[in-house]
């Protein structure tokens, strides 16, 4: 049971991610299918209409320990020297349930503009009385623009790993009391 408060403007005030009910994930075509993973240690806040997020690369999880090690190595994220991914919005546009967020994405010490697109739900009051707003966002980045150039050729000569990576953020933000 929830009560819809407003559905036309970007929420004002201060909102922080409930990380248990939020996720940051990536998907990238690998060989014939999609390889995916997530970061579990992050924080996201929406303050007076500006979205800011920070994620610890050390918390990157995929379904194989050796792959996690490889992803955190200098060939990929270089977690030792660049322990965090950050996103800071520069503009948020909302039309009904659709939202577009321009901002600066920093990964491996390299900052590039990125636009997150998706949907916004709420704000709405939850069953404990807190006010929540949901964002379901994604963007596609070219990993080679962030100095992640690793690849291996398949037997047919095609590269095993695609350069375009989809980043997904499914966020529940709770309004500060």
């Amino acid at each position, binding site marked *: 049971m929830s009560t819809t408060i407003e559905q036309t403007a970007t929420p004002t005030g201060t909102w922080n991610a409930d990380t248990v009910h939020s996720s940051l994930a990536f998907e990238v075509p690998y060989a014939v299918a999609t390889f995916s993973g997530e970061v579990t240690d992050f924080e996201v806040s929406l303050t007076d209409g500006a979205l800011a997020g920070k994620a610890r690369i050390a918390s990157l999880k995929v379904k194989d320990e050796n792959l996690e090690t490889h992803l955190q*190595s*200098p060939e990929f994220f270089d977690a030792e020297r660049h322990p965090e991914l950050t996103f800071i919005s520069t503009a948020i546009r909302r039309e009904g349930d659709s939202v577009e967020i321009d901002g600066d994405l920093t990964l491996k010490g390299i900052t590039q503009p990125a636009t997150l697109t998706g949907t916004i739900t709420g704000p709405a009051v939850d069953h404990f009385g807190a006010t929540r707003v949901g964002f379901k966002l994604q963007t596609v980045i070219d990993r080679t623009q962030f100095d992640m150039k690793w690849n291996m050729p398949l037997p047919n000569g095609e590269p095993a790993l695609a350069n375009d990576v989809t980043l997904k953020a499914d966020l529940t933000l709770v309004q500060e009391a």
Partner: protein
Amino acid sequence: MKVLAISGSLRADSHNTALLRMAAEEAPRGVELELWQGLKEIPPYDADDDGVPGPATVEALRDAVRAADAVLIATPEYNSSVPGALKNALDWASRPLATNPFRNKPVAVIGSSTGAFGAVWAQAELRKVLGAMGARVAEVELAVGHVHERVDEEDVRAGLRDSLEVLVATAQPALAA
């Protein structure tokens, strides 16, 4: 700064070992090269022997890598690739991957051959292997072709000085900046 120098050749009069000795003479102030001489004692990799601790000679290699600030490898080229003994030693050192001493370790690869190309293919494969192990592979390329005719040439020494400079900068980016 301590650099562990590893030769991929076992031959007493190895050109690649000589190259590393020359590199020690050309090392910049504050950089000390130590030649690792345990390659011949590393047993063939056998997962059945890959326990904790591993064979004593393997543990000695792991300790030497761990104690070094950076690693310089000089490789010959056998059948267009990395010599088996060197690859075998790296395979041992890389286990287990998540805690292996080469993880994030700055490493430079150089090489020489009596042919025209200076072990370029072995070097490329070695860089690939080190990347997979999680090493921080320095952007060094020194391929000394016709090495038997070029002993002690100034341009070889200059190439070694440049290679060490890049390795030091890779290991200590704050000092290089």
